[in-house]
């Protein structure tokens, strides 16, 4: 019977399996209660406590860039102005709502908690090693690295949006968009059903693909998202292209940003028309690989409204936005990039409630961060302090750049010092930079957490080949 039970365990309910795979949250309780207390205090003291200056106001920051692996260039706004912003925000002090936000000089968040921002460091299947996060770029300037702020405090935020999931709302979103999208693609509207994905804590539209396309949607506490993907199977008549009103959406792979945006102007207008939005600005981002002869991995074009700025913490536009992503699988598309997908992100919550400042936390100094870097107490990939410390002599004895970046999970955004070290330049000119993330705020349980990483590495018996030599 025991063997039978082991086999029968396989088919227990899906949600039980997924829930058990998640890292337990017991350690969250103290700070959750602290937040609840802070929230109560906010209500009581909002009018009494003076506003605390922010390190930056995302509303006024009109440069959209990706802090992970994407090189990006901002395109000048069309008529962006602070008065336009003011009229949208009204008298509310942007992301101010500082009144009542707790300010801490002591460590509040734990190293375990911060590890959740890096899935590979919180899930026990990912054994620690010397593997670092990497970014590939033509030059480091194109990464638009954010300088270290002079303000000794920075915000820790909840960026989940926190809108309750609403199946009917997602259905309306799908209904209102799938008809016009299907018509533009010249395919029948898909049959679909909506299911709850407990792992992602979102609703998903499971749609029946047509011969050439998938039209699907998801809903989380921040967005309704429509996804249109082209199928590149052998049977697909369009060969992976998105044919909008019979015309393929494509760009030249060697075009500069201005040329890409110009060539997609009509596509932007048509998509805005189909999705009933008015998004007048465009921005091009590219991701690279370091090994391919054609280093361009993908190009994503954002259609958005620059005048609303971007969210400082998530890096995403504050307006609803469309992304048009061209994949370049093996550089197979010749001169044209035409293997495309479209995503439409519709916010479910107003700007002012997309980010809740949980706490203003004093920053550790750059010197302290450098010390942590040398000790291997860093986040970012499958890193183990033992490996990093052993590799440190050749890897992070010095570094090429340091930036101030927010790392964001579904529910939390935390500031980091991010150290960049060039490790390679491929023949195609693409440079590889290793990235090491040092939390910019003091944490509890640092030694305990990183000791557990070393133990996991040793016990895990999985990454010995990667150990520093």
């Amino acid at each position: 019977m025991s063997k039978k039970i082991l086999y029968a365990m396989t088919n227990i309910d899906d949600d039980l399996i997924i829930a058990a795979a998640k890292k337990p949250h017991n350690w969250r309780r103290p700070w959750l209660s602290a937040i609840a207390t802070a929230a109560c205090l906010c209500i009581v003291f909002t009018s009494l406590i003076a506003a605390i200056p922010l390190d930056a106001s995302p509303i006024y920051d009109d440069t959209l860039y990706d802090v992970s692996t994407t090189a990006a260039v901002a395109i000048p706004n069309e008529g962006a102005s602070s008065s336009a912003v003011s009229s949208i925000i009204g008298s509310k002090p942007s992301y101010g709502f500082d009144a009542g936000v707790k300010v801490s000089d002591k460590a509040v968040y734990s190293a375990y908690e911060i590890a959740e921002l890096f899935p590979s460091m919180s899930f026990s299947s990912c054994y620690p090693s010397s593997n670092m996060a990497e970014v590939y770029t033509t030059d480091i300037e194109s990464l638009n690295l954010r300088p270290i702020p002079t303000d000794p405090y920075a915000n820790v935020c909840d960026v989940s949006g926190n809108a309750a999931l609403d199946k009917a709302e997602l259905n309306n979103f799908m209904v209102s968009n799938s008809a016009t999208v299907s018509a533009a693609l010249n395919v029948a509207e898909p049959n679909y059903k909506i299911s709850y994905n407990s792992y992602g804590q979102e609703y998903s539209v499971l749609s029946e693909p047509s011969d050439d396309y998938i039209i699907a949607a998801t809903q989380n506490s921040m967005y309704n998202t429509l996804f249109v993907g082209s199928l590149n199977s052998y049977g697909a008549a369009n060969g992976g292209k998105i044919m909008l009103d019979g015309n393929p959406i494509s760009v030249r792979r060697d075009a500069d940003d201005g040329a890409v945006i110009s060539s997609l102007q009509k596509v932007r207008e048509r998509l805005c028309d189909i999705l009933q939005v008015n998004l007048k600005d465009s921005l091009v981002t590219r991701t690279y690989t370091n090994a391919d002869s054609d280093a361009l991995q993908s190009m994503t074009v954002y259609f958005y409204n620059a005048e609303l700025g971007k969210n400082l913490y998530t890096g995403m536009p504050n307006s609803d936005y469309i992304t048009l992503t061209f994949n370049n699988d093996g550089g197979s598309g010749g001169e044209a990039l035409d293997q495309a997908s479209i995503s439409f992100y519709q916010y479910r919550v107003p700007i002012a409630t997309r980010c809740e400042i949980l706490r203003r936390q004093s920053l550790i100094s750059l010197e302290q961060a450098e010390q942590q870097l040398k000790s291997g107490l860093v986040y970012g990939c499958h890193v183990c302090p033992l490996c990093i410390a052993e590799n440190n002599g050749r890897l992070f004895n010095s570094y090429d750049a340091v930036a101030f970046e927010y790392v964001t999970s579904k529910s939390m955004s935390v500031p980091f010092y991010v150290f960049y070290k060039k490790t390679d330049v491929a023949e195609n000119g693409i440079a590889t930079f290793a990235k090491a993330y040092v939390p910019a705020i003091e944490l509890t349980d640092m030694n305990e957490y990183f000791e557990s990483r070393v133990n996991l590495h040793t016990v895990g018996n999985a990454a010995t080949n990667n150990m520093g030599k």
Partner: protein
Amino acid sequence: MDDNAIVALFLKRTETAIAETQKKYGKYCHRIAKNILENDDDAEECVNDAYLKLWNSIPPNHPENFQAFVGKVTRNLALDLYTKLNARKRTNSRYATAIDELSECLADDSSGDFTDDLALSELLSSFLRTLPEKQRNIFIRRYWYMDNVKSIARTYDITEANVNVILCRTRDLLKHYLESEGVNV
């Protein structure tokens, strides 16, 4: 890529479905297989077989929870492969240890007459839902993911002895639950 999109690729017989699955769930599958087989090469073989099985089973299946579906396929194949590889020898693997542990509280295979595996799975799900969250997850970590006790203790920040006590109590509860449901254990 979104799970729905990956499933759609399988349904459309697009080979990139495998690559996307590997990219998103390769490590997850490897962990499941490795925990059972305790050998990287065998685990890799098992995971590759899992991709093939996914290809052959979607369609007709249209899983709502793709991650759980991938995990189940991998786990079943790993259990089968383990049985095949260790048919004639007694080992001290996690699999063998897990069976031993369950045997302490549940009778030997030969005495069982409960043959409907799916019904047994439903009973197990019902039983697990009666447990407090932490106790339930620890049991699943041990007997679904085959995590070892030390790893579970570290994950839940409790001692190994505590984990063993929780597991033993849960096995005892399971035994009584199955008996109360008319299962001859």
